[in-house]
């Protein structure tokens, strides 16, 4: 169960519906035992990836390998994967234990053994008392857990989850996120989780695969995606961000300047060789998070500029300021996030302030 061996590999996988391509040449490795989230807006092809792996749809091109063996043409009922469907897809005419035990009973496991393992699985998802209920008698969160128990009872190599939390309300969704994560740790099974909700992705995943328009844009830990997005799409999609367009200057060690409407901004490029290799004068964005931006005592020097506070929004633990910065002709809208204080914010709406961010907190993405 080492996290470093690849369980499943997708190689140059493409999928078209008729003449409409939905996946272009996808390469993806799922590591044994990890919680991998596929994140993307609707129409990005994320659910299609899941359906191809699960065997619900045939590939158009490419191959899927499990432990190095091609399973692209293996029928759905022979694949050692189980799916938690978006609408749960519980069998309405069977009780909770009937549903959970289904995967075992179609494999002709002995009745006693089924009963034992169903009880075990229901215990795991904390539904022991509901064994004899029908799905219609359960709440959304309970159905969700039945679907999970049904998927994990066959001890699949991989559990596929297709936006399973989408139908739940916010509070329940938070609970279920923690619950899913803890179950995943407990049974040490690989989870492949599809969602369009980046908060959900950050909260649960070991690694996140960001998809857009049928392409994988970036694959990495939540930390990597947040602090080192490799393209404009990921920088904008994943968390709140400030992006300022400009032209790259010459490399200075682990940093590189970019000339923008806000002046020269110096950003870190450590560990990102493609940014080092980009030619001088190339179009790019300086990207810095709202929490990296703070008030400065003057506007002299690099990474310093002035702006006018257009709006202040109290958001509980933090306060978000919307700032207009730069000359009128090239005004930029930026966001600044500061911890809220009980005696009110130091910021005033309409005030002109000096702003800065530290070079190591800014990064670059190529346009």
């Amino acid at each position, binding site marked *: 169960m080492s996290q470093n061996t690849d369980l499943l590999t997708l190689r140059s996988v493409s999928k078209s519906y008729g003449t409409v391509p939905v996946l272009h040449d996808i390469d993806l490795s799922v590591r044994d035992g990890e919680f991998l989230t596929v994140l993307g807006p609707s129409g990005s092809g994320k659910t299609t990836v899941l359906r191809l792996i699960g065997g*619900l749809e045939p590939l158009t091109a490419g191959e899927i390998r499990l432990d190095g063996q091609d399973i692209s043409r293996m029928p759905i*009922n022979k694949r050692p994967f*189980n799916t938690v469907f978006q609408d749960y*897809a519980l069998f309405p*005419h069977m009780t909770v234990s009937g549903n959970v035990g289904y995967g075992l009973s*179609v494999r002709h496991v002995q009745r006693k053994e089924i009963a034992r393992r169903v009880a075990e699985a229901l215990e795991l998802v904390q539904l022991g008392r509901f064994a004899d209920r029908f799905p219609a008698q359960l709440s959304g969160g309970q159905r969700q857990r039945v679907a999970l128990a049904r998927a994990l009872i066959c001890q699949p190599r991989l559990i596929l989850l297709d936006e399973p939390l989408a139908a739940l309300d916010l509070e329940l969704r938070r609970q279920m996120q923690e619950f899913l994560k803890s179950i995943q740790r407990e049974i040490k099974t690989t989870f492949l989780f599809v969602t369009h909700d980046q908060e959900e992705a950050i909260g649960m995943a070991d690694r996140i695969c960001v998809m857009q328009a049928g392409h994988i844009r970036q694959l990495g830990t939540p930390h990597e995606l947040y602090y080192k997005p490799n393209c404009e799409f990921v920088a904008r999609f994943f968390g709140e961000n400030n992006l300022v367009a400009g032209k790259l200057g010459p490399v200075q060690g682990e940093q590189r300047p970019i000339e923008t409407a806000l002046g020269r901004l110096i950003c870190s490029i450590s560990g990102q060789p493609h940014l080092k290799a980009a030619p001088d004068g190339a179009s790019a964005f300086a990207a810095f998070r709202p929490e990296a931006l703070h008030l400065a005592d003057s506007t002299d020097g690099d990474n310093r500029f002035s702006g006018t506070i257009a709006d202040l929004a109290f958001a509980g633990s933090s306060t978000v300021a919307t700032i207009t910065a730069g000359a009128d002709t090239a005004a930029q809208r930026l966001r600044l996030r500061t911890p809220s204080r009980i005696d009110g914010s130091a910021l005033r709406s309409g005030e002109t302030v000096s702003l800065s961010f530290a070079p190591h907190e800014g990064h670059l993405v190529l346009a």
Partner: protein
Amino acid sequence: MSAGVTTQPAERRLSLLVTVLAFALPVIFVLVPLAIFLVYSFFSVDQGTIVYAPTLGNYVRFFTDPIFLPVFWNTIVLCVSVAVICILLAYPAAYFLTTLRGRWRYALLMLLLVPLLMSYVIKIYAIRSILGLNGFLNKALVAIGILQQPSTLFVFNMNAILLTLSLLLIPFAILPIFLSLERIPQTLLRASDDLGASGLQTFLRITLPLSLPGVASAASFVFVLAIGDFLTPQMVGGISGFTFGRILYSQFGTAYNWPFGAALSVALAIVVICAILIGERFGRSRGTSV
């Protein structure tokens, strides 16, 4: 806001009228005639005129006369058989329809239902000529060597009624079964595949049980229509194919004993109501859909 909610008086009067009609029509056209039948069944006939004095005589005759109960029972068995045959033929047809995609599915469904638009009597004539001594069925069976010579097995007896009713009523079985099959969410079938079930297992454990409500209503539909039919037995049953419907018909038509006919109708109505209730009981799916 209040202005939007208040309805115009004319509109309100219209909705009241609709409500009254919705309740009044079944009462006037169904319940009242049934009640009249029930009342008539307690009267008697003397030399062609109805005697309006209450008596249980009709019911006593029904239960004691050796003619009626056996015919009654045989008719029930016949109609159950018709229902079974219709289900066995309609289920595969309906299942096949649901495997078709888009336009074909409904085009074929319409084709299967087209016979419903044709005259009942013409259909019976057509089927009778197929079943007859020189009919298509006999010729075909002789041609492929199953029969040595044309047989009278298929016409003017109980077999003929069974075959004809089954043929006539199949569309009524296909429709409810098709609808219940179509209502099964595809994801349930995919979930079953995903959990490792074979195609047959998925059919037997998911599709079949979830379509049973449709089967139950199809069966009760066919049974009720078959047992109320007197025209088909009259036309293809000959002398030996004697059904309860024919007895009923003769009481009203030839014997002119309306009270006794009414009593027989009540007996038949009880069976029909039971069939509908049984169909309804099994027609309700367990646990209901998610």
